[in-house]
């Protein structure tokens, strides 16, 4: 304790992110995660079953609407597995965004009264989203294994499956980064909190969730590829079921964008965090 020293200044270096301090509060992060789970399912009948039901129902609806009625191509992959894999990874992204996008607004009452590293809140939200994702992912793997064992067309064992870990980590990080940027901007402009839902929805249709990248050509294809989530979803399917083509260059691009956005997000978040109490 002798060497403990904190200097509070009006201006801090932009790269002074204090990430070490966040680590010191790991017990708090753990408690926040526990609380997130406890509060979500406290007064529900089905409890965590919702986690499983949600992607299942969505995938069934997609199969019926986009697969059966619209007859969109799934690249020869079983429709249900195609939509379910897209949905599962997208839900990780969208829950990472929506879980953190109102961090400041939702926690104003605590942030305004006591100090602790503010990043603990979005980090714990991200962990919550990842845990939720894993429950859904296990189910996805079961469905995949079912198709694989029964020898369904368009499903094979992918030697790239270890890359799934990187893709999952990237998705959670990217979603959280987008979320904290939104939460930082909503301190000044509440509009974005309302717009966030709409943006996420549009974003989903700009990502090959209900269609395959192969069916798109020309400038629209380039536009889709510029969306970092396109390579993520595409490669997620490839690494899971060995279906389609692996995008190497665009994935590297997407990884670079993720790191840049995550870094920019944390810098912005730290900058806003210091004085946001005065403007909320």
């Amino acid at each position: 304790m002798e060497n403990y020293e904190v200097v509070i200044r009006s201006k801090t270096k932009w790269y002074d992110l204090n990430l070490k301090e966040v680590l010191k509060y790991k017990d708090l992060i753990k408690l926040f995660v526990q609380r997130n789970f406890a509060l979500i399912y406290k007064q529900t009948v089905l409890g965590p079953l919702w986690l499983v039901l949600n992607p299942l129902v969505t995938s069934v609806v997609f199969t019926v609407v986009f697969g059966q009625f619209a007859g969109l191509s799934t690249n020869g992959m079983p429709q249900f597995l195609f939509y379910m894999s897209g949905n599962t990874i997208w839900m990780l992204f969208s829950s990472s965004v929506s879980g953190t996008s109102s961090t400041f607004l939702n926690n104003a009452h605590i942030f305004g009264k006591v100090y602790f590293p503010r990043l603990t809140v979005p980090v714990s939200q991200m962990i919550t989203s990842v845990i939720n994702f894993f429950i859904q992912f296990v189910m996805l793997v079961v469905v995949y294994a079912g198709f694989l064992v029964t020898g369904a067309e368009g499903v094979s064992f992918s030697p790239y499956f270890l890359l799934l870990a990187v893709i999952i980590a990237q998705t959670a990080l990217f979603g959280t980064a987008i979320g904290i940027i939104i939460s930082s901007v909503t301190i000044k402009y509440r509009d974005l909190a309302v717009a966030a839902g709409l943006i996420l929805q549009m974003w989903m249709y700009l990502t090959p969730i209900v269609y395959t990248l192969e069916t798109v050509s020309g400038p629209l294809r380039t536009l889709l590829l510029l969306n970092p989530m396109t390579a993520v979803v595409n490669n997620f399917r490839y690494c899971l079921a060995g279906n389609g083509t692996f995008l190497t260059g665009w994935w590297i691009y997407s990884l670079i964008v993720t790191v840049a956005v995550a870094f920019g997000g944390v810098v912005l978040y730290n900058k806003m965090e210091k004085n946001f109490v005065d403007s909320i």
Partner: protein
Amino acid sequence: MKPIIEVKNLKKRYRLGVIGTGSLAQDLKSYWARLRKKEDPNTMIGQENRKVGDSFMALNGVSFTVNKGETIGVIGSNGAGKSTLLKLITRVTGPTEGEIILRGRIASMLEVGTGFNGEMTGRENIYMNGAILGMTKAEIDSKLDDIIAFSECADFIDTPVKRYSSGMYVKLAFAVAAHLDSEIMIMDEVLAVGDAKFQKKCLDKMLDAATNDGKTILYVSHNMATVKQLCSRCIILNEGKVIFDGDVDKAIEIYLGAIGSDTIFGDLSDTPRFDGMKPTVKLMSYQIMNKDFSVFDNKEPIRMRFKIKAEQTVENAMLRMIIKSSELVPVGTITSEKNINVVAGQEYTYDVEMDLSSLASGKYIGSFTVFTVNEKIVDEYDSITDIFFFEIEETINEDAPWHSRWLGHNKFPDMTITQI
């Protein structure tokens, strides 16, 4: 050894006028208006105080240092910058200029119970609150029993706190904060909550922490009695600046002087009268005779001298003082005998003695009126509202601290009780 807290030229500016408007559309409107040199449609009006352009300096160059083991009282009237100072030290918000160096962990008791979640049990909340305050799980584990014992909530510790009474809630929260392993403790008026017994317990705990554990305490309060009890040094803030830093008794004297312009002697000749009345038996001045400043022990009388100038002949007039609490709620009235007899054109001096032994400790404000009553008709000859600021001090070694919030401002003479 380096001081444990160093505050250097600390400034905090709050933007007035155009405050965070909350929507892009309004910001664009403001921007558009400024472009055309028109009045900003989002300007707030009616804010003048300490304005610098469109901003307000809540702290305007505050500097001080605190050494390890000191207990510092921070006093000042509302809006002096006390809360802002504490918010900056506890890092809730950042300074505009200047810096603070802290050489120890801070336990903030500004808002006890922050982060409590009603759905979670007392035990779960202890962990959550402790973690928010910076404790690790292992630390909380080792102190859990002490915390529960101190909180007096052992029977309900596994009940969701939404079923707690507000008193239990505060006790639990204070218990967590008080057991934080910290070198610096920052307290707002947390002691104003909970019952008298618990408050005494908290105060004792603080005193113990300061004297035996060498903890540094920063205590912000309007309650001069507790400041005196707890603090070894006092800082007075006024309009965002430190106007005094030093001895506690001296600080209290200055502070009480600052809130009621010269409280020992008051020149009333130019003071505006109630409702713009023209006094005909005019109170010219008052002076406290038995004290150097207007803090009284409730065991001693208040002796005052009044100078009166008569412009009208009046017989059998009386003087009364309406006593209000610091929240300006009338507490009671003390009236003289009917023996003010004055002749037009003459000046008089009266000495009064008031027995206020039934007044509980606290800060009060007196209003003076000269009046007569004839057949239940009251005629007022002079009336000055809220002019005399004074404090009644708690006698040390009393049975229990008095809390006017619960017990009222009147402490009647002891009741007699006889066993038959």
